[in-house]
């Protein structure tokens, strides 16, 4: 049975044809437009998990703020982390247009019901990891986010455009760090190579399972949320990144990686998806620590929220009395 924009349970809904026509015509769906309940739920899940990923994504880098090698690098890293907080907020706000609340989404994150990108469950062991994250993790995110700029839901597409504009400095910041290290001492070059060795395969897994194993892709594609397949995006990333690694004179840890003249793309080795499943289900190197840190930050920040409420109440009272 072919998957279409109208799920079977909405087949008789009088509003369904207009929705399908909008999707077909590349007309955006906006917050108060009729939409299948499953479309709404699917977007709430995807957008909130995207927001959680940005939010948790601040954690792997924060330890390096006090350990950055120079003031310039510290300021750049701080700006990157601020951006990530901002991106989380754009996405939470966009998700809220679909009828969920901030408290609901954070509760799902803190209780482990909601997921976030598995990549943030890996430890950031050296300064070279910081560079590698900017270069590869943000690089992979950019490819996915460029695609999402064309998604059918208006607020998500608009949030993606804003995020894409800001994300490119993240990737350049990372690459610049790698250039400094790779053109530095032998120890620095070794550190850079070691970071690449540890991050390469987890980054390739960011694009999700192979198309043949991806259960949600068909419906997501019919709804024009997903505009390109996992394998297509992954191939795009590899093709873009290999020349960059060549420039750095770093070896990508894949003995099967080679240019395929006939295909016009790089061939690469088999991905160990079992590790992805393990990390996604909560058993990665840092899952418990990341979640613990997020919950602690939320709890430790309660006094700020209370103070803001008290401050607002005081201002209102003063305005009334005046």
């Amino acid at each position, binding site marked *: 049975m072919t998957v279409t924009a109208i799920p079977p349970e909405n087949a008789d809904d009088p509003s369904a044809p207009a929705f399908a026509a909008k999707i077909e015509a590349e007309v955006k769906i906006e917050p108060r437009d*009729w939409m299948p309940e499953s479309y709404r739920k699917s977007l709430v899940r995807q957008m909130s998990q995207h927001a959680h990923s940005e939010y948790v994504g601040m954690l792997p880098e924060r330890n390096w703020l006090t350990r950055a090698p120079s003031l310039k690098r510290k300021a750049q890293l701080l700006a990157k982390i601020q951006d990530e907080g*901002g991106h989380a907020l754009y996405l939470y706000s966009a998700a*809220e247009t679909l009828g969920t609340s901030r408290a609901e989404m954070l509760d799902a994150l803190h209780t482990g019901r909601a997921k976030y990108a598995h990549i943030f469950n890996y430890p950031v062991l050296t300064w070279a990891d910081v560079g590698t994250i900017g270069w590869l993790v943000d690089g992979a995110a950019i490819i996915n986010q460029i695609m999402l700029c064309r998604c059918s839901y208006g607020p998500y597409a608009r*949030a993606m455009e804003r995020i894409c504009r800001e994300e490119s400095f993240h990737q350049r910041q990372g690459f610049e760090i790698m250039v400094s290290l790779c053109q530095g001492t032998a120890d620095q070059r070794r550190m850079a190579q070691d970071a690449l060795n540890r991050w390469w395969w987890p980054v390739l897994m960011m694009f999700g399972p192979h198309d043949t194993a991806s259960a949600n892709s068909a419906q997501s594609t019919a709804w024009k949320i997903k505009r390109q397949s996992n394998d297509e995006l992954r191939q795009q990333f590899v093709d873009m990144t290999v020349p960059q690694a060549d420039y750095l004179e770093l070896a990508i840890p894949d003995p099967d990686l080679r240019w395929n003249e006939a295909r016009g793309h790089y061939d690469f080795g088999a991905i160990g998806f079992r590790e992805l499943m393990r990390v996604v289900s909560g058993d990665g190197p840092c899952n418990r620590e990341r979640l613990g840190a997020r*919950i602690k930050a939320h*709890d430790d920040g*309660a006094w700020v929220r209370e103070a803001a409420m008290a*401050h607002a109440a005081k*201002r209102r009272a003063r305005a009334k009395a005046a």
Partner: protein
Amino acid sequence: MSDVKVANDATSADDWPLWEVFIRARQGLSHKHAGSLHAPDAEMAIQNARDIYTRRREGESLWVVRSTDIIASDPDDKESLFEPAEAKIYRHPTFYTVPDEVECL
């Protein structure tokens, strides 16, 4: 996770009203909708809007409006609400015939 409590306090962001943010990029342009945020009051909404939506000096002026103050047309009424304009093509300059020799029309 047993030694951290999951905050379920009454001072969650959900108690903060939702504000829509509009930004004027430069003098001469109108304010454009940029997104939304939660804040306890208008002044903090402006400050938060500055932090969230103008990290790169994207604007010279910020408006914040309580989302509940925005009255929106019903998307289901779109056809009937905008129907009067549908058949009035004579509101468009292209409807009119202008002789080729005549300039400045």
